[in-house]
């Protein structure tokens, strides 16, 4: 067992739990950022440096800011949900279902022979360069499709957000 792994995991779980339970949405967002950072840390641990960097750039740099904007556009600036409960009527049902699913998952993981599997071997350095090469050779078509998807999402998001404005 590795101390770094445990610590990082604990922080992440905490961040995740806070992100789904806190009432103030801005606070939730902060907890979510912590969670994202944890994931990035795990990526670094797993020798996936490039992904880690991408995680920080995309999630913290873009998604979190986007969510912040959404919060500010839909609520007053503090982002609290007023006097009403932040949880829906059947919250206990949700919690119960999620935790039983988690339980089942853990059970299955334990039953699997993969449980004790150790890393495949020394992962060579310079993976980033390799990824770059692969992206423009073997993976160039998915990359292009992804580019189209992103463009479409960009335009789509703008159109959806603008639509109501136009009708008025």
């Amino acid at each position: 067992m590795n101390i770094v792994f445990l610590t990082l995991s604990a922080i992440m779980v905490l961040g995740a739990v806070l992100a789904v339970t806190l009432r103030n949405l801005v606070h939730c967002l902060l907890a979510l950022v912590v969670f994202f950072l944890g994931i990035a840390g795990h990526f670094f641990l797993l020798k996936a440096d490039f992904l880690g960097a991408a995680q920080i750039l995309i999630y913290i740099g873009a998604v979190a800011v986007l969510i912040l904007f959404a919060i500010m556009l839909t609520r007053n600036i503090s982002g609290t949900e007023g006097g009403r409960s932040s949880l829906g009527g059947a919250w206990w049902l949700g919690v119960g279902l999620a935790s039983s699913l988690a339980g089942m998952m853990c059970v299955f993981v334990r039953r699997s022979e993969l449980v004790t599997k150790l890393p495949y071997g020394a992962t060579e350095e310079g993976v980033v360069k390799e990824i770059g090469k692969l992206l423009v050779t073997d993976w160039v078509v998915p990359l292009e499709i992804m580019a189209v998807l992103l463009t479409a999402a960009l335009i789509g998001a703008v159109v959806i957000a603008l639509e109501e404005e136009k009708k008025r």
Partner: protein
Amino acid sequence: MNELVKQQWLIPFLPLVAAAVQSLLPRKARKLSAGICLTAMGASCVLALRAFVGTLGHHEAERAVWNFVWFDYGTTRLQLGFILDPMTAAMALMVTFVGFWIFVNATGYMSDDENFTRFFCFLSLFAAAMLGLVVANNLLMLFMCWELVGLCSYLLIGFWYFKPSAATAMKKAFITTRIGDVGFFLGILMLSWQAGTLNLYDGGNGALEQAGKLAGLHGWFGWSMATTIAVLLFIGAMGKSAQFPLHVWLPDAMEGPTPVSALIHAATMVAAGVFMVGRMFALFTAGGSAEHPTFAMDMVLWVGCFTALFSATIAVGQFDIKRALAYSTCSQLGFMMMALGAGGLVPGQFHLLTHAFFKALLFLGSGCVIIGTHHEQDMRKMGGLRKYMPITFWCYLIGMLALAGVPPFAGFFSKDEVLLVTFQRSKVAWGLATFAAFLTAFYMTRQMFMVFAGKWRGGHHEPHEVRWNMWLPIAVLSVFAIGLGFFGGKYEHYLGVHEEELHGKSLVMGLSVAVGAAGILLGWLMYGRKTMAHAEEPDPLEVKLGALFTCLNRKWYVDEFYDATIIRATMLLGEFWRVFDNRVIDGILHGIAWTAWGVSQVVRWVGDEFVINGGFDAGCEGVRLTGREFAKLQTGRIQGYLRILCLGAVILLVIWYLK
């Protein structure tokens, strides 16, 4: 001659090009149009003259042919070809020459018609088709041109299409000749089957060169093959050359402008039939002799003879100047046919040539009269034109004397030969023909006196002489109407036919002159001594003959007879088959359809309505109720769905775990 024949195609081609060019000319280009036409026709005339001169030097009946492939089919090929022999050369020269002067006259006659260019287009096409027919060395090509001649006559007769009578006449002309053409067509089919070729002369393999062989084969109705083919071909000639009983179209064809009448009745269309019989003469005579002529020859003789007399009687009773001439044409064509049927190829062809000149002269002259009298055609409303139109009068007189067979005019010589050759064959035919000649002289005299003698009966507008471009052609033609007759002997020599010594020459000639003189005398007695004073005055002949005259005037009621029988039967047949289609065939169809519909109705009521529909309705109701119940599950709350999803996942995992 062998080089000349290769240029024969140019003779019809030039007018054809002229026609093609003019079909695209605008209406206003009158001068250009007439210029092109006259140039083309003149050039054709020069070419024809060259060909004629080329044939002159040869004493034997020589001919040059030039065949070419039109298309291949099966393992063989279809050829067309051109010919140059004396008959062709003379005919082509006549057609181009007379045609040229008719064209000149037409520039005057049609000068104020709005479709002037169109007229010259049709006229050129007409000439082209006729010349093509003359120079063809192939029966198919001859037939094609033959049909085109029919087309042009259709177009020209109906040139004033807005007149209902013209619209009907054009149709009548085409259909009547088409009936004859079917016979011709069958003859061609038979010939191409039996002879294996349609080339007339082909170095020994031509259809005409096989006439002897064909005469030995058995054809239809117990005739020899050659006779069968000849009879079929002659049916075509009957249509084209207006022989009884297919003559009815010709008088109606007078609905066309007068130059057209001249062209149709003198130089081209009607001549085509006689020319064709002459061209195919070998088939007609094959297998027969002077004592025992073939059926085809007999048919030609008697049809011609009957038509000559029949039409002459009708001509006597006409008041329309052009109609009288038209029946006279019919009659003269009968003479030609009769001569051919009697075995006289040369007299028949020679009469065709001389007749072309003086009949063209007469028609163009009548055109001048019509123009001079401001489009009056009824002879009763004319009179005294000699004073007003002297040039026309003198020319017309020459034409009339030629037609009446007065020596020394052209008609005398040719008609005399016709009668002479008929005399050899059949005294009865000769007698009838002589009577027809008498009638000819009579009705022409009648016409002369009614039109030119006495005083003007036509009303306020005084007649006037026509312009030079109208009288010049008739003046030129009248020179030939006088002089051409003297070349009869030369023509026989030229054609290279050596006919045996004919007996009874002086008798026939004397009688012929006598009946001509008698006819003219009778005409003078009835019409010349005391000319008509008023247009309404009854015809002296009408007074004498009474009902018979009406009968003549109404053309022996042949048209009425056809209307009541053939045309009516055809229309009824058409109506019958139309109704048959609509009632019987469609009735059966509808019956099937109704039956199918009925069966389906029964199936619907018995089966569908109670069994299937009942069950179906119940099923539908069930589905609807279920749907309504299940719809309640759709809360629209997304988290609710997600919960169910989640639950499902958990349950699946549990099941899997327990397994």
